[in-house]
């Protein structure tokens, strides 16, 4: 099975791609428009350099080859949402080409990263077709992959990795992700396209449906048509839009209103590869890199905290502390100093509760007072515990690491410092 993607991502610029209209969210239709994004006769596009910089960051993060200059083309087709009846996009002069994205030890090749403008939005109300041009001219990046994805798992991993990469570049694709899929199954590898799938969940579902549909068709000896399909979010089915014998004819020509644009001096944000960072951090520790990756993939604050505290506390304590904080606290009201207190508590061996987290975040002093017992009292307590829990003792005999579980349970139940318990427990169990 081969899956290829064309992912459309809206770039986080303040203004549109070819004019200075605002990109801010608004409820008022057709309120952020001008002669340029309406394609009025006489208007001309002017390139938004912030969009170029953002797109360059993406091309760089995807290890693309980047030329010194970029150019644009006109893609001509007639549709009411397209003000000029051509879309300004890129082909040979695209900002990036021949890149790749690593997913769990595999490379998914990126054919092209290109900048283009979004058309207007079509709103259907009863018998009416309404047009909202606020969206017209939104800067998009289209990321085109080679058909290198071979399972649903890889698709998920690709999307997750791409999303993380984009997140660290300041591009959030949670809602906006729009993708075209192409899927072909052996033995005939007939390419079926699924157009305009919105959102990550729909993308996975559409893929799953399409794989099942094609698998069944092959099993039942029904032919598979080379066609373009659409995904229906309600029914969760893909539906045939049109069969195609040849590629669509868009009559591309160079966009003569935008000459080649030099990008050799354009600044951009360098990529953060969370997977690589997690592996490096976890090396030589007992922390699973996957845990670090999951915490930090879409959270630059957590990654910053790990970096800040990594010499001062054990990695396990930092991760555990952040997990506690994320579970009970909220980012807006927390300072790094408060989160450090939580990490410190974890490091001291305390079981950090919801109350403790909330107290720390409320600025209260949280100290864990442990009971102090003599060695004799401790030994008695440990022996009684082991008598009541013979299974744990059996377990320990098979796996010496079970001692940690025994220590934690005794310490928590009796408000004892785990280190005190550990000292006596190992003495007792080793001599037994």
């Amino acid at each position, binding site marked *: 099975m081969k899956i290829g993607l064309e992912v459309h991502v809206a770039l986080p610029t303040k203004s549109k791609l070819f004019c200075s209209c605002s990109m801010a969210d608004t409820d008022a239709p057709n309120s952020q428009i001008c*002669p340029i994004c309406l394609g009025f*006769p006489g208007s001309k596009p*002017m390139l938004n350099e912030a969009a170029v910089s953002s797109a360059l960051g993406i091309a760089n993060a995807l290890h693309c080859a980047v030329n010194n200059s970029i150019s644009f083309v006109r893609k001509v087709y007639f549709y*009411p949402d397209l003000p000029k009846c051509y879309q300004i996009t890129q082909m040979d002069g695209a900002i990036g080409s021949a890149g790749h994205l690593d997913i769990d030890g595999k490379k998914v090749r990126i054919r092209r990263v290109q900048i283009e403008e979004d058309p207007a939005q079509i709103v259907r109300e009863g018998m009416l077709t309404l047009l909202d041009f606020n969206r017209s001219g939104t800067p998009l990046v289209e990321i085109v992959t080679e058909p290198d994805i071979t399972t649903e798992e890889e698709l998920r991993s690709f999307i997750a990795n791409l999303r993380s990469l984009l997140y660290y570049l300041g591009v959030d694709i949670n809602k906006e992700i729009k993708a075209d899929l192409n899927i072909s199954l052996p033995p005939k590898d007939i390419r079926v396209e699924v157009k305009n799938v919105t959102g990550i969940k729909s993308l996975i579902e559409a893929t799953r449906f399409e794989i099942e549909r094609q698998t069944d068709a092959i099993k039942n000896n029904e032919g598979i048509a080379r066609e373009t399909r659409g995904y229906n979010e309600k029914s969760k089915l893909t539906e045939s839009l049109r069969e195609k014998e040849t590629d669509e004819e868009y*009559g*591309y020509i*160079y966009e*003569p*209103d935008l000459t080649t644009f030099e990008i050799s001096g354009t600044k951009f944000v360098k990529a953060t590869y969370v997977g690589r960072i997690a592996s490096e951090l976890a090396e030589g520790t007992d922390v699973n890199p996957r845990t670090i990756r999951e915490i930090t993939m879409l959270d630059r604050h957590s990654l910053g905290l790990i970096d800040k505290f990594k010499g001062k506390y054990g990695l396990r304590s930092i991760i555990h502390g952040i997990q506690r904080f994320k579970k009970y606290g909220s980012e807006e009201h927390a300072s790094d100093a408060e989160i450090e207190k939580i990490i410190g508590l974890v490091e001291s061996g305390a079981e950090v509760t919801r109350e403790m987290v909330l107290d720390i975040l409320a600025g209260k002093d949280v100290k864990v007072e442990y009971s102090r017992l003599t060695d004799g009292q401790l030994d008695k307590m440990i022996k009684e515990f082991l008598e009541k829990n013979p299974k744990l003792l059996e377990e320990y005999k098979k796996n010496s690491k079970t001692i940690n579980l025994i220590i934690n349970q005794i310490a928590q139940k009796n408000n004892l410092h785990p280190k005190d318990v550990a000292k006596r427990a190992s003495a007792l169990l080793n001599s037994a």
Partner: protein
Amino acid sequence: MTSYIREFLGMEKPKGYYTELASEIEKKDAEYHAFTTLNRKIIDCSDGSVPFTTKANICVKGIETTAGSKMLKGYLPPFDATVVERMLNDGKFSFLGETNMDEFGFGTFGLNTEVPARNAFDKDYVAGGSSSGAAVATAMLKYHVAISESTGGSIATPAALNGVVGFTPTYGAVSRYGLIDYANSLDKIGVMARSADDARMVFDIIKGKDEYDTTCAVEKINDEGKDKIYIIRELMEKTEPAIKKAFEKMVDGVGKSYEIKEVSMPILAEAIAPYYIIAMAEASTNLAKYTGYKYGLQYGEFNRRYNDFFTEARSNFGIEAKRRIILGTFIRSESVKDKYYTKALAVRRMIIKEMAKLLNDGFMLSPTLPIPTPRVSDAMKLTSVQNYAMDIFTIPPNLGGFPHITFPYDYMDGMPMGAQLITGHANDYALLDFVSEWEKGFQYKYKHNLGSL
């Protein structure tokens, strides 16, 4: 120095001057059709400024701007073109109106529009195109300058046929923002006037970088005089004898101050094909936006499928526009694109390279048209290909983005004849200097002098 602008600004204008001028124009224009819109508000203008007109494909805020097309009937641009803004901000000029043209600039003689303009010297003859109205207005009004536009000769041809100075600057020297596109990589806004000095004054106002037009990037205009003039053999061979004879007589005179050299550059005789291929390819994309509901023509019948609606609305294009949309779309199609479009771009680069080399060394001079001014009735009989062949002299500099100027050099049977001088990129001032010098020894003639004082 001949400057009608300075002369006018220095004179006392009688009360009601502009009112009378407007009425005179209206009366005359019923015969010549130079204007598509006459700005009657100019009547209120009492500051004594010089009237200027704009070709009907240059946006003027709130003034119906149709580019000579039915598809743009009723289009009121919500903004001024950069050139209009600069003219108005300068303070010496006031807007008189918009001038007639071939639909979207598609024409050599000004006939491809509903009511064609007529030659200012004799209304049985063509005005030339596509900036027909700009040239006729310049030949009719004594004190006036015309902002015009050329893609493949649309300034030079009508200027020559109406006996005025037609100046087409280097591509990228003047902002195209607000120009309704014909072929963006070829379109240049320029000036028509009754003297080179007036053209220079307007050029100095409208030129210069503009953030609204990325391609407007020429930093500095030069003034590099030349001592050689080149005449291209292959183009002269395609010129009618009567024109050739008159032109050679003029060259003999010029030869007293310049070294005249006839050279061979066969590629220039092939420039028409790549020009029309590129122009039509670009034009067919520019004309895609006219679908009959956003601006201009309101087709109205919304209760049908998009494609049917678009098809019906777009039937309102004129015949030449339809021809160029169909040919342009064909040229762009995947199966033949390399054969035509890609090849045309390559030939264009070759032409630019060869011309630039020669122009580095001297000017190029030629007649502006290969034939005497045709009668309207004769021009109507020409096929498209015969029409396109009339652009043989004007296409090379336009294809290469080289500045060029046409100026009257003789009169034949009462009709003016124009010669065209070309120089290298950004050397525009050298052309204006040349023609200023020419004007010292040659008096231009006009049949009309509306607005005389």
